């Protein structure tokens, strides 16, 4: 991999706690000395948080579409009726 990608891997492994002890210590020392690297770590964490949010949003969409299928398709009619019955007070 090219250098920039190897650096991203290093940051990613640091953020996810995957660096072996020696490498982790070196990375932490570089972090103290290099504000640009600190910014990079922050950016990396923001990126991963957005990726998590994206994954969760996609899952919610899938669940929503299962719900729509179960409550609209004729073959699931009895399922739908059995649920709606609970809410008829």
């Amino acid at each position, binding site marked *: 991999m090219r250098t920039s990608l190897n650096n991203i891997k290093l940051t990613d492994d640091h953020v996810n706690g995957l660096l072996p002890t020696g490498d982790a210590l070196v990375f932490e020392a570089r972090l103290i000395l290099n504000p640009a690297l600190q910014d990079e770590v922050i950016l990396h964490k923001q990126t991963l948080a957005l990726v998590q949010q*994206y994954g969760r949003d996609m899952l919610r969409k899938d669940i929503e579409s299962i719900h729509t299928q179960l409550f609209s398709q004729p073959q699931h009619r009895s399922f739908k009726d059995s649920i709606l019955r609970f809410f008829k007070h």
Partner: protein
Amino acid sequence: MTSKADREAVLTELYKSMFPVVAKYVAKMGGSFDDAKDVFHDALVIYYEKVVAGGLSVANDKAYITGIAKHLWYKKFNQAIGTKSMDDMNFDIADEPAEHPSSNKILHHLQTAGKRCMDLLSAFYYDKLSMKEAAGKFGYAGERSVTVQKYKCLEKVRETVKEQSLEYADFIE
């Protein structure tokens, strides 16, 4: 749950077997159909995240889902009447990132401009697929090429996040 079809099948099966239990409970407690749907969807999300993280055996999954849904209903109900939840067992859903207007804008941008990379990255970081599974899912020749693609995508998405967060200054905390 490594493929989309596989995940959909598992979730549909859980929906059919577990939603009646949760809906019956919520109805008995005075909740509405939409309340039942909300807590059930949240419970499925929590369950899914636990399973992919490897923290749950499939043997007790149904009891687990009902347990979370009941807990979520208690929380929702107690909030509605303005009292504190009686027990504050914390489930992972509490970690859901606060609705950040800028992060939503950036996310929206990434969904349109970089969907393929977001799909690949969320397969690794959210769905916790292995390199081998991801290579299969996204049609890469092997683990090596999908690994390289993962870091290329991280580079690309990070760059977008950086550009976008300059536009939305409040994203930087």
